[in-house]
């Protein structure tokens, strides 16, 4: 069996190797995640613009004719009651 100092030197070697490998492995993974994100991440602007469109189109989207019809219907209903 090796002496204790020799074993400690070996353990220190494994420490540097191990931490190095863990960092390299996870760093590569970070890069890969970023690459995938560039291609497949949901675009934040797209969502924002869609929301903006919805807000602006909805009030304007209701046809003035329909508003008139509904108002007339409400009037009729109230007159009956």
């Amino acid at each position, binding site marked *: 069996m090796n002496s204790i100092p020799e074993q400690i030197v070996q*353990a220190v070697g494994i420490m540097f190797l*191990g931490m190095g490998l863990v*960092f390299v492995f996870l760093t590569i993974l970070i890069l890969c995640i970023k690459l*995938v994100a560039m291609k497949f991440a949901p675009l934040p602007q797209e969502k924002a613009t869609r929301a903006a469109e919805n807000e602006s189109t909805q009030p304007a989207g209701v046809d003035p004719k329909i508003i008139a019809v509904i108002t007339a219907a409400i009037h009729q209903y109230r007159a009956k009651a």
Partner: protein
Amino acid sequence: MEGLIAFWAASGIANFTGGQVLMMAVGALLLFLAIVKGFEPLLLLPIGFGAILANIPNGGFIDEGGLLFLAYHVGIETGVFPLLIFMGVGALTDFGALIANPKMLLLGAAAQFGIFATLIGAIALNWVPGFEFSMKDAGAIAIIGGADGPTAIFLASKLAPELLGAIAVAAYSYMALVPLIQPPIMRLLTTEAERQIKMEQLREVSKKEKIIFPLMVLGLTILFLPAATPLVGMFCLGNLMRESGVVDRLSNTAQNELINIVTIFLGLAVGSKLSADKFLQLETLGILVLGAIAFAIGTATGVLMAKLMSKMSGGKINPLIGAAGVSAVPMAARVVNKVGLEANQHNYLLMHAMGPNVAGVLGSAVAAGVLIAVLG
């Protein structure tokens, strides 16, 4: 009269040895911790009961053919149980927080320093008379710092089966003690102002990203670290079942029924290793001390790395989340959240801490792979 004597000779009272009584007391202590204190009850309860069963004189549970012998032989010697648990954990894990902020992987990596520092500590302990840890033993003990039960059991079964009982008990006990061990270290290494840092909301993650992630992790493991593929492979299988959305039945089974069944037998089998002749040794004491050191160092390096990243990002990262890098999902993340709330009542760090937390699971699996590749 003869019948009575035979009955007496076969009774428990006549055959007890001191060690068995003591180990039953250890089993009872584990039951107490599980039931009264609520420490990791899912594992400590079966482990504690297994310890009692294993030390029954003439019980035959751990003799060849006995229930606990078979559970250990089939499930742990082969490494099957920890791998099935890992598949369940994969099916339970949502990587969304990590994919949204991949830099958190660095925290999961930094916290693994506890493992490798303890490797040196275990060897250095050989200077104390009575300790004789080989390099393989040291590796198996060091993995306690990964704060990941199945990984610790898997590695111990590969590198140092005779120490498995003590290592598993230490790993699960310290995971239960995360809320006590971590906060003092976290407060010591951070300033009040740092603890109050609020972090930006995470971006949304698409389903495609979540499906690609486990496949990508598996691919990288195949290329660079095949020794870690048993752990990482099962983990990724579980996660893919979850995220693909096409096999909800399998995913539900993996994260509920299967993991529960395996947990029962895993706990019993680990408990069977708590027999008097194996556990009542000086080495066990050394393992318990080294495990605590591993845990503390891992927490500290995680926090220090987060501090560095916080400085470099101009104060956008709360250094507390580094402590979650030691896996122990989700306990470590909850502890981060709690310490963060103490500094600032409106600062919820839970989601931000989940990133480094799940990164820690990957980090400790990779570290285990490195140890197997180098020492195994």
